[in-house]
């Protein structure tokens, strides 16, 4: 790998998304530009005044003769890079493009440990990918559709606020899941819609989608029963399936972070359920509304409650 020439002329590169970054990185790598010589700009980064800048390499290294050896990295490594790039960095985080290029540079030079979870660079990528996977899973789990039929029939709409760039991962999942039902998913960034056969991505999300979805998601409790009363059935189910004798706040919030509660139709029920369980309801597993109903013990040997009386013998052993 020593054969690749090293060009240390400083240059500047821009990328808005992973594919653009990959294109730039490939050219830089072929020109032998080490990570320290590249200044990266990220279209996703609000501090970057990208719009006044051209989307290309400044001081393109093409003046040098590019290395003819093609760059090969493993499929797993590419997956790691691509998915770690979906992570939305905070101010204190390492920006994504320089980190990705640093790892790619090392991989291309035969340093396979760069992509390992115990490596100083690889570790950050793995942690980001892990966070991205988790967020995609959150989207599969906690996104809620609300039924809003139109002239064409059944139609569903959802509002979701993903912490990382996982809209497409979620949309693909729901296209598999919802089959022929039409739906729209709106987020603060992009939006996606499914007409029963084709996915349509929009970035930014159209204002009409966003406002309809936000309104649907903001309705809780009583108002649900008017617009989409099956959410009322769901709220009943949620209360009844809870076992107040096993209250465990920590585990619940670990798995279902509170930032999602706002847009779950059952979210506003949780504090009251916990309070009730803490104040006495905790002794029994049975939900108190069920306990208040009139009970019915069944006489022994009486066979069926729905009127049939067969198999007097067979039943006890049936």
């Amino acid at each position, binding site marked *: 790998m020593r054969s690749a020439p090293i060009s240390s002329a400083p240059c500047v590169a821009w990328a808005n998304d992973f594919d653009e970054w990959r294109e730039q990185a490939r050219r830089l790598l072929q020109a032998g530009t080490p990570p320290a010589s590249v200044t990266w700009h990220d279209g996703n980064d609000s501090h970057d005044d990208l719009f006044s800048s051209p989307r290309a390499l400044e001081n393109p290294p093409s003046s040098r003769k590019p290395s003819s050896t093609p760059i090969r990295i493993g499929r797993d490594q590419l997956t790691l890079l691509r998915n770690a790039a979906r992570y939305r960095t905070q101010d204190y985080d390492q920006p994504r493009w320089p980190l990705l290029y640093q790892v790619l540079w090392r991989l291309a030079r035969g340093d*396979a*440990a760069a992509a390992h*979870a*115990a490596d100083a660079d690889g*570790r950050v990528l793995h942690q980001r990918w892990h966070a991205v996977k988790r967020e995609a899973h959150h989207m599969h*789990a*906690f*996104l*809620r*559709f609300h*039924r809003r039929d139109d002239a064409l029939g059944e139609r*569903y709409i959802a509002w979701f606020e993903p912490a990382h760039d996982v809209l497409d991962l979620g949309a693909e999942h729901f296209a*598999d*899941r*919802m*089959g*022929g*039902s039409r739906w729209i998913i709106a987020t603060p960034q992009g939006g996606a819609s499914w007409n029963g056969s084709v996915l349509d991505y929009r970035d930014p999300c159209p204002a009409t989608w966003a406002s309809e979805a936000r309104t649907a998601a903001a309705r809780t409790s009583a108002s649900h029963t008017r617009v*989409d009363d*099956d959410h*009322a*059935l*769901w709220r*009943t*189910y*949620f209360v*009844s*399936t*809870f076992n*107040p*004798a*096993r209250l*465990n706040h*920590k*585990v*619940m919030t670990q798995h279902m972070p509170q930032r999602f509660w706002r847009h*779950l139709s059952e979210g506003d029920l*949780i504090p009251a359920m916990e309070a009730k*369980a803490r104040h006495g309801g905790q*002794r*029994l*597993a*049975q*939900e108190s509304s*069920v*306990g208040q109903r*009139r*009970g*019915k*013990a*069944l*006489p022994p040997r009486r*066979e*069926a409650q*729905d009127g049939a009386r*067969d*198999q007097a013998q067979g*039943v006890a*052993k*049936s």
Partner: protein
Amino acid sequence: MELIDKLSILADAAKYDASCASSGAPKRSSRGKEGLGSSNGMGICHSFTPDGRCVSLLKVLLTNFCLFDCQYCVNRRSSNVPRARFTPEEVVRLTLSFYRRNTISGLFLSSGIIRSSDYTMEQMIQVAKLLRETHQFRGYIHLKAIPEADPKLLEEAGRYADRLSANIELPTLTSLKTLAPEKELGTIHAAMGHMRQGIDAANDDARQDARQSVRSGNSKRQAPRYAPGGQSTQMIVGADATDDRTILKSAQRLYRDFRLKRVYYSAFSPIPERPAGLPQAAPPLLREHRLYQADFLIRSYGFQAEELLNAPGNLDLEIDPKLAWALAHRDDFPVDLNRAEPAMIARVPGIGLRSVQRLVDLRRLRRIRYLDLVALRCRLDTLRPFVITQDYRPTDACQDSTRLRQSLTAPQPAQMALW
């Protein structure tokens, strides 16, 4: 009775079953097809109730009328609870509605025994059949198998369901006799045997299909599916005096003899109008948690039940079973992470299965150092006395286990809280 009232009664009656998993189903998609639903093998928890339990499926009973009188059960015939019964169509309507709103990934249907075991089983099959055939539903279906039902019915259930489960509830013959007089361990085992045969046969057929399709170039599978997500069961913990060793040994036998996918442990929950002979208070949930940890060590780490508990009794509540085993086997430690077999690394407390794989990958690239364990986020406080790396040797390697145990448990004296 209104649908919403039935739902509140029949969901309340079903919650004593701990299982709510939607994992293990084959890949299915409804893209470009009639119908609804998908599965990809991974389960999804769509919500969590404040008891920390995952809500993945609509878990209801078809009815809570029951002819049996199992003492630990809230639905036993002598229990004074409100009773209700869904029609199969009502369960279908609820399943599809919740599924479209993305609050569930499928249905877990169980039932009290009405009329006869066969009749009850037929009613449950009817729901699954409506979902699969009339509505082309491709989400997850878990059906409770009634052990006393005709094996033909279990076979039919397996064609619609991703998972079947027959609950053993009590792990010993004597406790079953006193607490569930109408149930028989032999019948439950026989049903599990039937289901295992069905699952094995479907798997064999699937393998044959796969071979044939390679040869013939025909990728479409022919074999009928049979409960591709396997079978599971549940044992109640703390309803009688059975100890953890007995529970784990019977779980181990169930995994071996019937190739169960999962055994669930359910800490006995106090029910209204507790019959005499049942405990007044629930056992500590920590006991249930320790059983799950031990079960995981048996299923995935190659431990034997007898290794985890070599004498009658219960698991240590203060420390987890892996640490307890390591403290009892100090001769096998410290483990050199650069040399040891992966199976032995997996026995080091504080190192999980994913880290084992990563350490094995890493040592193909270079020697393992202590900082790598930090980067991999292993539990350093726990593993410190048990490992050797290129640059690290435990100083407390020769400390005796009692002292070591004290130092390992000392910083968290109030660990009795739930996991």
